[in-house]
C-alpha cells in the first residue's frame, strides 16, 4: 500500500530539489524571491505550525485507513447486487 505514496513524494522532491537554485527555472533564483519584509522567525513559526498540523493529519490518516482496512469491504456486495439489478 505505501508504494504509490513513496513514488509520488519522491517525484515531487526530485522536481523541487532538482530545480534549485532556481525558483522559476532561468528566471528568478530562490534567494532573490524571498520577501525582504517577512522575518525569519515568522517563517520558522509557520514551518513548525505546518509540520505539526501535517504530522497530526498524517497520524489521523493512517489511523482511519487502517481502521477501514480492518473493517473490510462490507458495503461492496450490496453495491454489486444493486448494480447488477439495475
Amino acid at each position, binding site marked *: 500500500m505505501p508504494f504509490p505514496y513513496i513514488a509520488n513524494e519522491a517525484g515531487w522532491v526530485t522536481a523541487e530539489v532538482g530545480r534549485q537554485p532556481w525558483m522559476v527555472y532561468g528566471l528568478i533564483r530562490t534567494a532573490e524571491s524571498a520577501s525582504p519584509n*517577512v522575518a525569519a522567525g*515568522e517563517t520558522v513559526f509557520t514551518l513548525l505550525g505546518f509540520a505539526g498540523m501535517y504530522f497530526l*493529519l498524517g497520524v489521523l490518516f493512517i489511523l482511519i485507513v487502517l481502521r477501514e482496512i480492518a473493517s473490510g469491504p462490507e458495503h461492496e456486495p450490496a453495491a454489486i447486487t444493486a448494480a447488477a439489478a439495475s
Partner: protein
Amino acid sequence: MIVVAFVVLVAMLAAYVLLDGYDLGAGAVHLFVARNDAERVAVMESIGPYWNGNEVWLIAAGGALFPQVYASSFSGFYLPFMVLLWLLMFRGIAFELRGQFPSDLWRSFFDVTFAVASTLLILVLGVALGNIVRGVPLDAGHYFLGTFTFLLNPYALGVGLLAVAALAQHGAAWVAARVDGAPAARARSALKILWPAVLVLIAIVTIVTFAVHSPSANLRAMPAIALAPLCSAAGLAGVAVFSLQRRPRRAFEASTLFLAGLLASSAATVYPYLLPGYPAPQTGLSIFSAPAPPFALATILPVAIGGLIFVAAYRTFVGLRLNAGRVKPR
C-alpha cells in the same frame, strides 16, 4: 478596462462573502442552534454540498487580484494569511473527520473546532476588510511597514465584530430556512438577538467610516453608488420583517441583499484604491498605479468574465435543483 477588472474582483469577493458567508455563519451559530448529535449532523448536512465550492470563490478572487497588490499583501500580511489558511484547514478537517469515529468526545471536539474556526475566520476576514478601508502604511516600494499589532486597531476590530454579527445572522437565517425542527426554532430566536446587534454595529461603523476613509468624494463624483447602502438598509429591514412573518427563505434572501449592499458600499468607499496607504491614501496601491500589463489584462478579462458567468449560472442551477427541501434531524 481597469475599472472592469476592479468590478470583476469585487464581484468575486462579494460572491465569496455571500456564499461562504452562510456556511461560516452556520458554523458560528452551530453550537447554539444544534444541541444533540442528530441536530448537529443536520446543520452540517445542510451546508455539506456547498461549503467547499463556496470557498473556491476566495481563491478565485485571490487569483484576480492585481499583481502588485498580491505581492504587497501576501508578504506584508504573511502571518495573518497563514493563520487564515490554518483556520480554513481546521474547518475542513472538522467536516471530514467528525463522522469517522462514533465517539462523543471525538465528535464534540470537532463540533467545537468547526464553530471556533468558523467564527475566527469571519473575525479575521472582517478585520482585513476594516484595514483595507482604513489603509495600511506602505513605503515607496509598496512594502508593508506596519506590524501585526497595527492591524488590530479599533476600527478594524469594529468591522471584524460587525462581520461576525452580520454573518452569524446570515448563517442563522440559513439554518432557519434550510433545517427543520429544533435548530430552526433556535435559529429564529438567535436572529432576535443578532439583528439588533447588527443594527447597532452597522450604525457605529458607518459613522466612524466617514471619519476614517470618507466616501463623500466618491459619492459626489458618482451619486449612483448611494444605491448600495440603500439596498443594504432595505435588506436589513427585510431580515426583520420576513423573520417576524415566519418566511425564512425570504429572510435569508434579504440577508443576502444586505451583505451585497454592504460590500458594494465598501468597494465604492475604497475605489479607486485596492490597498490605500495610511495615513494618506495616496501612498497606497490604486487600480491605476498597480495594473497588470495591458496584454495580460486583455487576455484574462474575457476569460475571467466568461468563467464567472458560467460558474454563476451553474451554481444557480445546482442551487435551484438542491433547493427543494429542508434537512430533518434524524
